[in-house]
């Protein structure tokens, strides 16, 4: 596979469609700069600042961009907020659309057929496999990402975190809690 990728790179470089320096920059960005830390900062801001939370609800693309995280595929973002009544879960049944700018690249299970097919049919069962037991009456809403629209779950703020700094709050926000296969960590 390495030789085929090199061959593609060679052909495209010869045609002037890509250059190796630009490729290196993209790799570096996704390996070291974007990741779930970005999303955690968005969530922590929303927990701390009601005005920001409101903006995030109305226009997630702009609110997230205000923190410096913008998508490169021209996709729109929608933030879905967990409440006492509803838990949100994100999937891409089509392939692996994912909010790269705030979560980095998706974990292996997100891209795998079992999750892609079962998240819609049996979300409660899938969540149980992730060790997440929801209260019986709680509704689960499943959001199917597309190339144009990606979702970020805003988990519920853990209790006992009143007065915490955004930085400290962000440490409680796991990647899975922003996909919906988990919840935020408990305050210790």
């Amino acid at each position, binding site marked *: *596979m390495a*030789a085929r*990728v090199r*061959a593609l790179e060679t052909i495209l470089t010869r045609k002037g469609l890509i250059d190796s320096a630009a490729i290196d920059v993209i*790799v570096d960005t996704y390996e070291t700069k974007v990741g779930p830390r970005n999303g955690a900062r968005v969530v922590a801001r929303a927990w701390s600042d009601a005005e920001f939370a409101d903006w995030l609800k109305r226009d997630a693309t702009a609110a997230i961009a205000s923190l410096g995280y913008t998508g490169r595929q021209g996709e729109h973002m929608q933030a879905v907020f967990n409440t006492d009544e509803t838990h949100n879960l994100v999937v891409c049944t089509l392939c692996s659309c994912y909010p790269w700018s705030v979560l980095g690249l998706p974990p292996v299970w997100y*891209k795998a057929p079992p999750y892609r097919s079962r998240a819609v049919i049996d979300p409660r069962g899938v969540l149980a496999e992730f060790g997440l037991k929801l209260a019986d009456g709680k509704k689960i809403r499943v959001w199917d990402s597309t190339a144009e629209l990606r979702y970020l779950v805003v988990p519920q703020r853990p209790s006992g975190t009143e007065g915490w700094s955004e930085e400290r709050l962000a440490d409680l926000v796991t*990647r899975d809690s922003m996909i919906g296969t988990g919840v935020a960590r408990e305050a210790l």
Partner: protein
Amino acid sequence: MSRPELPAGIDEPVFSEPWQAEAFAMVVALHERGVFSWAEWAERLSAEVKRPEAAADGSDYYERWVAALERLLAEKGLAGHDEVDAVAAAWERAAHATPHGRPILLENDPLA
């Protein structure tokens, strides 16, 4: 006192092999150059990951990714299958002909 564990996924390597990173970055770069739309890309990738021979655990995701890229480039007339085969074979020969520890260059292909 135990150290709090790191948030899930923060430390997981993004790519398990360098070619995966290169293949990923090529798609991002070509899209940014306007060679294809992201919707076009998502459609091709979706078709590849839905093939019956795709690994059930998603472990061949980047192999599917490369297959989707090759298909799209062939459709656009930018890189035909035979051309990719030929250049890939040249890279393989160059790799074998290059002494260990030296950078592999296409010029090292004995048939070049």
